[in-house]
């Protein structure tokens, strides 16, 4: 494939390219919103990484005083909360936004303004969550916020409120986005793209939206009950008033375990796209891949108490949750074997995305196997809440999700920005990341089983944890360095002219049929699909390759108008929670004003000019 620099002319009479800050604030283009998600999430990812590095420096020596205990507790809480809600989830959202419409052959998502609303709410929620740092009151009760430490009595400051309200805001964003992508996938697939012809990334994204829709209401309810305990004197989780802290744990993990699959299923989808492209072979066992994903998601709602074996639930509950947890290993194993089957007898092309995808498989296997180890309660009584668990979930979430998302970043970068990331720097990034990752997290298995609990700001020298912690700290610095290489790669690439062809990797899915980056309307003519790997089939018919596509003018294609009402409404949502948090001081006025703003935004959104005449009957493709 040739990579001659082709700065594609984007001379659109109908849709002039929009630039400037205002165009980003009012955009309803799923691709721009995807880029906003990606940039914001990557910023938060770096922030969460910085927090982790400070944690590692503190733990490099026993009895260290690099940071105070309060700071440490805020940092480990915010590291977890940030990486889960502000980094991995929205990095997946970036891919949902950018890719789902392209891969199913649509011009946008089902509800473009709702999509913009989701992003703005997410941004404000992320800022809200982090705003505690400005007041020295960042959340400090863990990402899982176990009751009754979160009660007013034991956490009188606003730390818990920043966490509680921030997560509620973020929940609004996630639910709105989940509805949007669910409807998009169900309703807006190109002609001929049956469910069982959808790209695997779309399938895994679809399952993820279902998980979001079912899991997030649970955490929303729990957070609202906690808010009532803290602000309105109820006792849901306070034993002195007849409540039960254990109730919180059940609420949290009924959400929290599906959340794990919300974090990993999109990564499965990414790898299931990258591996076939670089093996030059279709995904092995497509149907098994679909149904194993569905099965994982279904079982994911029946295993939550495996986070709670140490609470003493009794033998029947322990047995049920232990066996249901073990069952999940079966569909997960099926996925790994099918990825191996995809590579087997292939013609493997080791470009940067393939490095990260293979790295993902290698690391995810380790995380999966340690997961089976603590599905067994007698063993988990020792492993729970130690660094063994920290090792496990970093192998799943970093070795899994982040390796896969990085593979996705290198794979789709040319599509999104029209520029090829540097292969040499990409491989340096990979090897540094693999080395740093394993140096950081592999010793945690040992330090955990040898008695080091999680969430401790320091440890005494006499327990012998020093050497392994030092190795981990060195590893974490290498891990940080690997992302510095990535940043350099991004920076250098952004200064080069656009050089990416439409189809740099010989892809199988529809997004590679259109120019890089795609025009605002995606497809000049909506594609008709008659197989699972539509572009490969078309290339085969065409004798191996297709001519470089040139975007048309987009004339005659209806696109939704830009709108600032989603952003206004989002501000109303975030302000509502600020109002609740400040209600002890401001009285009801913060709430009244923000609700007024929220309804004003919604009203204006509903009756916005230009949207009523938008529904032209002859608009093809839906």
């Amino acid at each position: 494939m040739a990579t001659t620099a082709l700065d594609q002319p984007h001379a659109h009479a109908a849709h002039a390219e929009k630039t400037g800050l205002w165009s980003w604030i009012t955009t309803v283009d799923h691709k721009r919103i995807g880029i906003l998600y990606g940039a914001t999430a990557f910023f938060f990812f770096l922030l969460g990484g910085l927090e982790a590095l400070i944690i590692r420096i503190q733990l490099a020596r026993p009895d260290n005083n690099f940071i105070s205990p309060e700071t440490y507790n805020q940092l480990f809480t915010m590291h977890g909360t940030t990486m889960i809600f502000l980094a991995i989830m929205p990095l997946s959202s970036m891919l949902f936004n950018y890719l789902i419409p392209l891969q199913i052959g649509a011009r946008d998502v089902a509800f473009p303004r709702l999509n913009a609303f989701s992003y703005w709410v997410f941004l404000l929620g992320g800022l809200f969550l982090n705003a505690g740092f400005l007041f020295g009151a960042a959340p400090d009760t863990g990402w899982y916020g176990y009751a009754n430490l979160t009660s007013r009595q034991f956490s009188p400051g606003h730390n818990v409120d920043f966490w509680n309200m921030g997560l509620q805001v973020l929940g609004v964003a996630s639910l709105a986005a989940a509805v949007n992508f669910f409807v998009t996938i169900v309703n807006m697939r190109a002609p001929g793209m049956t469910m069982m012809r959808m790209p695997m990334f779309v399938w895994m994204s679809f399952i993820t939206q279902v998980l979001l829709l079912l899991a997030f209401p649970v955490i929303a309810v729990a957070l609202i009950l906690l808010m009532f305990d803290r602000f309105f004197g109820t006792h849901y989780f306070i034993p002195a008033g007849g409540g039960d802290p254990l109730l919180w744990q059940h609420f949290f993990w009924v959400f929290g375990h599906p959340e794990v699959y919300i974090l990993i299923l999109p990564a499965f989808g990414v790898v299931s796209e990258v591996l076939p492209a670089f093996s030059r072979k279709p995904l092995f066992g497509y149907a098994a891949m679909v149904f194993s994903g569905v099965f994982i998601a279904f079982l994911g709602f029946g295993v939550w108490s495996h986070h709670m074996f140490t609470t003493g639930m009794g033998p029947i509950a322990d047995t049920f949750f232990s066996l249901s947890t073990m069952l999940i290993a079966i569909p997960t194993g099926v996925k790994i074997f099918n990825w191996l089957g995809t590579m087997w007898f292939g013609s493997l092309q080791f470009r940067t995305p393939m490095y990260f995808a293979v790295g993902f498989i290698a690391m995810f296997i380790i995380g999966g196997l340690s997961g089976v180890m603590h599905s067994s309660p007698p063993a988990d009584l020792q492993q729970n809440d130690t660094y063994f668990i920290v090792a496990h979930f970093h192998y799943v979430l970093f070795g899994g999700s982040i390796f896969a998302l990085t593979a996705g970043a290198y794979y789709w970068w040319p599509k999104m920005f029209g520029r090829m990331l540097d292969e040499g720097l990409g491989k340096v990034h990979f090897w540094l990341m693999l080395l740093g990752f394993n140096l950081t997290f592999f010793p945690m298995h040992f330090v955990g089983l040898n008695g080091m609990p999680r969430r401790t700001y320091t440890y005494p020298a006499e327990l012998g944890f020093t050497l392994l912690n030092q190795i981990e700290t060195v590893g974490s610095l290498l891990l940080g360095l690997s992302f510095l290489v990535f940043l350099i790669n991004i920076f250098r690439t952004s200064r080069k002219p656009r050089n990416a062809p439409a189809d740099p990797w010989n892809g199988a899915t529809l997004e590679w049929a259109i120019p890089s980056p795609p025009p605002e309307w995606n497809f000049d003519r909506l594609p008709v699909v008659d197989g699972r790997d539509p572009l490969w089939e078309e290339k085969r018919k065409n004798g191996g390759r297709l001519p470089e596509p040139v975007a048309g003018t987009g004339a005659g294609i209806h696109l939704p108008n830009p709108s600032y009402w989603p952003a206004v409404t989002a501000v109303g949502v975030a302000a509502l929670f600020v109002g609740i948090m400040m209600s002890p001081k401001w009285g009801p006025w913060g709430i009244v004003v923000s609700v007024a703003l929220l309804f004003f935004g919604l009203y204006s959104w509903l009756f916005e000019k230009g949207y009523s005449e938008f529904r032209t009957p002859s608009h093809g493709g839906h």
Partner: protein
Amino acid sequence: MHPRTTAARRRAGAPLLCALALALAGCSPERYPQTALLPLSDFARIGDHVQDQTFYWALGVFILVEGALLYAVFRFRGRPEDPEPSQIHGNTTIEIIWTLIPALILAAIAVPTVKGIFETNATPQGAMTIEVIGHQWWWEFRYPQADITTANEMFIPAGQTVELKINSGDVVHSFWPPRFAGKRDVFPGRETRLWWKADSTGLYPGQCAEYCGIQHARMAFHVRSVSPQDFEAWIAHMKTKGPPKPPPAAAAPTAGDSLRTASAGAKVQGAQDSPTAAPAPAQGADYAAGEKLFMTKGCMGCHSLQAVGAPKGLIGPNLANVGARSHIAAGWLPNTDENLERWIREPQTVKKGVLMPNLGVTVEEARALRAYLRAHQ
């Protein structure tokens, strides 16, 4: 257009193996007094046994699957100009086989798991009860049969089953003595239980394993397993520490000082052979001054010095035998004279956020208080 570099041929697993080698250098459990890998009780061995079995299955699967991945990476490496490989979409037989094999392995793990679940949940017969109460950030231990209270250092008789009844005085904690048992969470208003039978004597560390606030990291404790005879002697000794009596009984401390040097394996000196006979070395002007300061500086508001009939609900640990404990400040600061004085003078520096405030104790006062507390063996 990107020719493969020889560097890219490096084994994908090499960094992993490096990490493995480095980690193995530091992973021998003997180096870790708080290790969960060297069980010292029947309860801990149940979990250890199950863990070993799952680990060996996991190791086998790890070697096979990572091996297959590495094989594929080297064997099926291609060039862009190579012909398109045959387009295989799947193979039902193979897919059924690799669904069934993991299911069988899991069944092999499930059997000892379920057995272990029921064994660890069985209520032991004739066990001695110890009440454990978690507090921010220390541990209270009560022996209801003997009506004795102590803190942060739990005495148990080796060879006898103990059953712990666990509660919290404030937030959720988790009681974790890794050599003897796994964790059991500690709830306010909800009793949980744990049991074990220790099969050797010695001093072993444990700590809180559920995040419980600013000093969660410093909420440790020790389990001191002693012979049944020594345990009876210790109970008898603690029973002498009743409510404060009129003047003559004030000189009750023993000289069992070897307790203080306790390292793992040190045994309790038979406290009964030094009841009130030997005059405590620390006793003197400092002791008397310390006794007075203990009353006037407000220590009594939070701490009790009596082991028998100790009041419940105090926010500071019982100090009846604090002079003999291996560690202070909840099981992590070695109980040296220097540390004890510093701890009395500036608790907020030693353990920031602890509920004991800095009380403006001078150096001299701290020495006197140390002498007084040290005498509480």
